[in-house]
């Protein structure tokens, strides 16, 4: 069992999927409106299991990523428990995400390229924070599919770029999002809330670490950004009647959302020749 848990594939897929499924399920029983918090919570649990609990204050970007994510989860749970919505919730998310990005990026801000990277990340953070604020109906499938796609893109790109721990954590986040999606398929049971949006923010923080602290071709992640338009895709795709129809439309939204991520991973592969570190 111990050897199984040491397997990087298990750590990046089966383990976070199970942890995500279980945590979303527990939160579903305790307080349904907090179920999306299971994604970020699952990510943090797997982080501790695989990498260990980072020191506080954290000396490195990965440690900052963990503690910023933990704070985001607390904010998300607090906001969702208090029923905080709309622009105030978006503002809370924006402040947390911008502060976290700058905290992580600060040691790497030594060039114009790094500055541009941070500006792109902040712009994307603003998109994540405010774009969904105007939506009246909060369906969890589209934003969870966006998160799944972004995390997959970061994980795949990191794997190709020889940054294994970032890859593992990003894929763990994707798997945790997958667990949430399974809970909401074919019937959508949960809201997305600030907790879910925080999980999307964590994908951005992972992208920041990848882009700023590794030699990975992280610019390809721009190709994955259309995944954030999954909500619009959902409006375009006909919502079927009955269980099968709903299952099909949710699956279609997820597949369409993941396509840009596959393009980004393909671009990373093409740019590097696909050679990975031999360790």
């Amino acid at each position, binding site marked *: 069992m111990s050897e199984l848990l040491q397997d990087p594939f298990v750590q990046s897929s089966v383990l976070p999927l199970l942890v995500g499924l279980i945590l979303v399920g527990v939160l579903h029983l305790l307080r349904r409106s907090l179920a999306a918090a299971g994604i970020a919570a699952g990510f943090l649990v797997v982080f501790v299991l695989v990498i260990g609990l980072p020191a506080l204050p954290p000396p*490195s970007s*990965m440690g900052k990523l963990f503690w910023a994510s933990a704070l985001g989860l607390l904010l998300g749970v607090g906001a969702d428990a208090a029923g905080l919505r709309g622009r105030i919730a978006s503002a809370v998310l924006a402040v947390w995400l911008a502060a976290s990005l700058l905290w992580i990026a600060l040691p*790497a801000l030594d060039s114009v390229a790094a500055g541009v990277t941070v500006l792109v990340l902040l712009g994307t953070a603003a998109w994540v924070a405010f774009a969904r604020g105007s939506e009246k109906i909060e369906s969890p499938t589209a934003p969870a599919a966006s998160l799944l796609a972004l995390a997959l893109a970061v994980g795949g790109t990191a794997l190709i770029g*020889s940054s294994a721990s*970032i890859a593992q954590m990003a894929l763990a986040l994707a798997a945790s999002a997958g667990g949430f999606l399974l809970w909401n398929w074919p019937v959508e049971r949960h809201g997305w809330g600030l907790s879910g949006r925080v999980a999307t923010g964590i994908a951005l923080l992972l992208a920041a670490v990848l882009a*700023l602290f*590794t*030699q990975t071709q992280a610019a390809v992640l721009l190709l994955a950004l259309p995944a954030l338009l999954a909500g619009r895709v959902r409006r375009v795709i006909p919502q079927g009647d009955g269980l099968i129809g709903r299952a099909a439309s949710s699956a279609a939204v997820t597949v369409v959302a993941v396509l840009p991520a596959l393009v980004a991973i393909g671009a990373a592969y093409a740019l590097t020749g696909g050679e990975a*570190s031999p*360790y």
Partner: protein
Amino acid sequence: MKKTLFAAALFAATAVGSVVPAFAAPVSYKIDPAHTAVVFIVNHVGFSNVIGRFDTVGGDVTFDKDAVEKSVVNVTIDTTSVDTNHAKRDEHLRSPDFFNAKEFPKMTFKSTKIEKTGDKTGKLHGDLTMLGVTKPVVLDVTFNKDGVSPASKMETAGFSARGTVKRTEFGMKYGAPAIGDDIQLLIEVEAVKS
């Protein structure tokens, strides 16, 4: 490493005491990067040992022959210069999985104490800072030779050091223990009077 150099000089003073002034002033040396190597050996999943080195190493030594305990050794290693003869692996080693070179571009060693164990050998104690974590390490050091180098015509001291560090103690946990936790160090140094 500088501590090691210091120890080497101490041992040199002991060995060639007849040529050392009775109350010599502290002497400053600079590490000669062209004749210095910091090599590491790490177990690879039990199959073999991977050998790597840092191509950029610098530092200085202030050696006081009369009060060696007051001598100072400082070494700085550029973590971006890690070289295992495989570009993709080196890229990985510079990533946050290992040396996190963007965030921690330097690794430093500062000596704290030297114990003499023989005519030309000793134990060099010092603080190694890697990934923002500082831990004490001990190296076995051997003084090789000092004097004017026939090549450079400069006052030169040379020594060798060996030791082991546990990388996980510095927070470098990725892949351990499959990729070995114990890192063997092989250090060869020449330093010239500055």
